[in-house]
């Protein structure tokens, strides 16, 4: 089973929850950092890195001797990554989404595969947990292509060794966040009961509920702000699976890079209980089919 930890608003506690869950998990687990623009799960899990590889996207390279400037590629490309202007053909590799459409429509077979570096995938072990993470190349504008590579690596690992995965997703509700949760069985939404947290929580609920996966909420910094999130969850029948108190000791532990499930028996119990409820939700999850973000 794959559990995605998402949020809407950033800074609500996705990584805090993911790292704590990893320490109480009751089965083989891959902990995955899919927040490739600013990965930070490693700061808490402190894995020993076993390997790393550079990920690339296939982009078109034009053989100018073969190109007749027919414009088929240019008409197809929605991102102007390949553009015919009169008797000239230009490519903008950084605009390419890697769909491969231009290769398919070129009648002259004038395109050959080139590549654009997306970033790096690293893996290793943190205690008994497998660790997997992506890190976007500085300057790369699109994170979903690298995220898909990390997810492919995750699928291979799960197929080979079984077990579960917990995904630390990027914030927001746009393509990167959707890409992170798309292949999961259960989506956990971590929120905080502040006006900003609540607003983005509603956006996340709207965006993710259409995916037809069981959703559960975790209220972090409970006791802060107001109670609108509780009313919303009741109204939408969105179960609140755990509450993490607004507490100075938690903030201090986090600031030192500690995993908060380890700082008190009460918090340990919070995450054990959360995991149990996530497993209950997973039983309601429809069978996963191959999906493409």
């Amino acid at each position, binding site marked *: 089973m794959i559990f995605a930890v998402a949020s809407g608003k950033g800074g609500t506690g996705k990584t805090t929850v993911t790292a704590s869950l990893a320490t109480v998990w009751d089965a083989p687990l891959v902990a995955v950092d899919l927040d490739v623009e600013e990965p930070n799960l490693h700061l808490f899990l402190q894995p020993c890195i076993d390997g790393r590889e550079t990920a690339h996207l296939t982009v078109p390279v034009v053989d100018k001797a073969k190109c007749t400037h027919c414009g088929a590629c240019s008409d197809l490309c929605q*991102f102007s990554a390949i*553009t015919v202007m009169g008797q000239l053909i230009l490519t903008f590799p950084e605009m390419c989404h890697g769909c491969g459409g231009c290769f398919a429509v070129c009648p002259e077979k004038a395109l050959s595969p080139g590549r654009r570096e997306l970033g790096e995938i690293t893996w290793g072990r943190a205690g008994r947990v497998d660790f997997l993470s992506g890190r976007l190349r500085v300057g790369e504008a699109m994170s979903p292509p690298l995220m898909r590579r990390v997810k492919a690596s995750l699928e291979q690992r799960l197929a080979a060794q079984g077990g579960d995965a917990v995904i630390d997703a990027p914030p927001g509700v746009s393509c990167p966040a959707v890409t992170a949760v798309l292949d999961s069985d259960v989506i956990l939404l971590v929120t905080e009961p502040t006006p900003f947290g609540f607003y983005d929580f509603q956006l996340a609920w709207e965006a993710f509920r259409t995916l037809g996966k069981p959703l559960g909420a975790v209220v972090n910094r409970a006791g802060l702000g107001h109670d609108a999130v509780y009313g919303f969850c009741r109204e939408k029948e969105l179960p609140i699976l755990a509450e993490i108190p607004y507490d100075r000791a938690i903030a201090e532990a986090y600031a030192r890079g500690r995993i908060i499930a380890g700082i008190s028996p009460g918090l340990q119990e919070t995450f054990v209980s959360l995991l149990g409820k996530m497993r209950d939700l997973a039983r309601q999850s429809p069978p996963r089919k191959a999906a493409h973000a």
Partner: protein
Amino acid sequence: MTRIAVTSEGPSLDDRVDPRFGRAAGFLVVDLETMDIQYIDNGQSQVMAQGAGIKAAQLVARAGVSCLLTGYVGPKAFQALAAVGIKVGQNLEGLTVRQAMERYKSGLVEMASGANQAGR
């Protein structure tokens, strides 16, 4: 060549120069000898997530102009315009299309050597 394109907020010479190139409302193509004008609508650029500047360069290149007058041009659009030999006059926002054109005809518009807007 005497045809130029000016980014325009509307179809007449008295409309304002649209400061944006890629996402301009449209382009007024003016033949400076005959003063024939032709308006090319660029409304579809508003729905493009990316690549609007390059598509716009394609549009004005097809119109057969030798010069573009506008406000700001990004690096990719500039590269595309330069590739087909279209000169670019920038920072003309705030004028009407007619004023920009007159300024160009008097030789007061300096042709740019590079983009004046960061890419997105």
